[in-house]
């Protein structure tokens, strides 16, 4: 077990980063907020965390500072974008990602310019990163339970219905956007502290495609979908080495196929299968009841 763990260290580190990033995408998409801003926050979190770590701030302080800063900036952006929906929100958050890239390229000593930052202290262990990802999953799972889970499910389907049921839809959207920003920022700082480098090429267009693939293929309806997507994307290059150079093409094709065939991804497929089994059993019981009643008559 320990030897397997050692052999898979790089992939496990990548898994921790991917899970946090996938959760960041999933939480907004599940709430009907069409945002790509997770990747921009990945960059902001990585730069801020790297600078703090290079100034000898303890790792827990780095993580808390990145989480709080991402939340504040995310909440501010959510207020600015309050009136935007659908494609327009997607476009403006994509523009936000590009702005962060440009800021990274021209950020002087804070970002290391186009070359990026090197020699960031290796402040996070693989186990700590995995623990952070696990905690992310636990926290996000709580967002899906009971009344809050139903209120957020309504956000995606029908905002007017949510308002009619007494739900503060606008503040829910802001909350979800800020939460996504926090997870994106934590994914970025985790990456920077594990790989000891960060540069503008690390959070470009390809990371948007990767993040979307994880969330959509796994299923945006649940945190479990994000986790499944992160596992799949992390180990994909290992199992399909011949396709490694076509990675972006494969991911894009996967998104299209999943959206057409099963919009709720792997989790949706599992839920549909489970429900079909239950419904089949229910029908069989009803049939047996009817036949029993006829025999008695």
């Amino acid at each position, binding site marked *: 077990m320990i030897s397997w763990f050692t052999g898979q260290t790089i992939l496990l580190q990548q898994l921790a980063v991917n899970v946090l990033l996938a959760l960041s995408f999933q939480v907004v998409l599940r709430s009907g907020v069409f945002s790509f801003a997770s990747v921009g926050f990945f960059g902001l979190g990585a730069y801020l965390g790297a600078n703090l770590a290079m100034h000898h701030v303890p790792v827990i302080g780095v993580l808390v500072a990145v989480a709080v800063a991402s939340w504040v900036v995310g909440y501010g952006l959510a207020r600015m974008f309050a009136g935007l929906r659908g494609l327009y929100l997607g476009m403006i958050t994509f523009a936000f990602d590009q702005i962060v890239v440009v800021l990274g390229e021209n950020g002087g000593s804070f970002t290391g310019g186009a070359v990026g930052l090197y020699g960031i202290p290796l402040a996070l262990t693989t186990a700590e990163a995995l623990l952070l990802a696990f905690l992310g999953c636990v926290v996000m799972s709580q967002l899906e*339970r*009971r009344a809050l889970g139903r*209120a957020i499910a309504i956000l995606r389907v029908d905002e007017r219905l949510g*308002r*009619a*049921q007494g739900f*503060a839809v606008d503040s829910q959207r802001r909350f979800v956007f800020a939460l996504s920003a926090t997870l994106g920022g934590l994914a970025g700082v985790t990456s920077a502290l594990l790989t000891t480098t960060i540069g503008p090429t690390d959070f470009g267009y390809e990371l948007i495609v990767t993040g979307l693939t994880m969330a959509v293929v796994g299923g945006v309806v649940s945190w479990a979908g994000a986790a499944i997507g992160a596992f799949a994307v992390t180990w994909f290059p290992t199992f399909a080495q011949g396709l490694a150079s076509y990675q972006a093409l494969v991911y894009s094709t996967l998104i299209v196929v999943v959206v057409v065939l099963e919009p709720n991804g792997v989790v949706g497929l599992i839920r549909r299968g489970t429900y079909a089994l239950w419904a089949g059993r229910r029908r069989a019981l009803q049939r047996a009841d009817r036949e029993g009643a006829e025999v008695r008559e």
Partner: protein
Amino acid sequence: MTAPRQEHAVSEILRCDGVKVYYGGVHAVDGVSLQLEDGALHGLIGPNGSGKSTLLGAMSRMTGLTAGFLWLKGQRYDELPAHELARRGVRRTFQTVRLLPDLTVLENVMVGADAPFLSHGIWQAWVTWRRSYRAERESRERAMDAIQILSLDGLERVRCGTLPYGTQRKVELARCVAAGPDVLLLDEPTAGMSRAERGEIAKLLLSLRGAGMTQLLVEHDVDLITSVCDHLWVMNLGTVIAEGKPREVISRPEVEEAYLGKAQR
């Protein structure tokens, strides 16, 4: 603009004063005033495009007012957000079915009863285990009661997307009943239902009235309206053209003219 002095009658629960909703040059609602008596079942009819649903939207704060005032239990609410109004006990249904198709009947009905818990904020709902467990139990109990009232027993675990249209309509009504509102605004709740189902809904509306719930029923089914309502308004071209006892109102010439047009001589 200041509100006119409000004489709040004891039996009155909701009032519209000179409500106008304009979309550019289109006067969808043009100066409508009406009041809902506490515990009564009111009807609102009118030809297509007469402004009934827009008025309902304005009364539920889903649609902004161009002018006019709205009062609930003697307090103005024309600047209150829609979700706040819902929390204060004014609930509505929509002309089209609005359910979460992937959720079960029970979960959809529970949505109606979730607002009191969620009104304390998202943070609390997110991090409090015991309180959310208690709120869940209460929501479930209220939802199960509503499901029984609507005769939806046995369908609790069925996904709403797989149900026939008439049953989906009943799930919507169950969601409203689970909320236990003071005022219920119903936008064509029997549209697309069979005759038998309409009869069931009529009985339900009467039983809700018996329980003291104030209702405003927007409908095209004149038979249903005249058989259950205590008071009726008729709208045409954004204004109220007649009001009074249902059977008396529908026989008025101006109402017949609004529905059937003027006879050619």
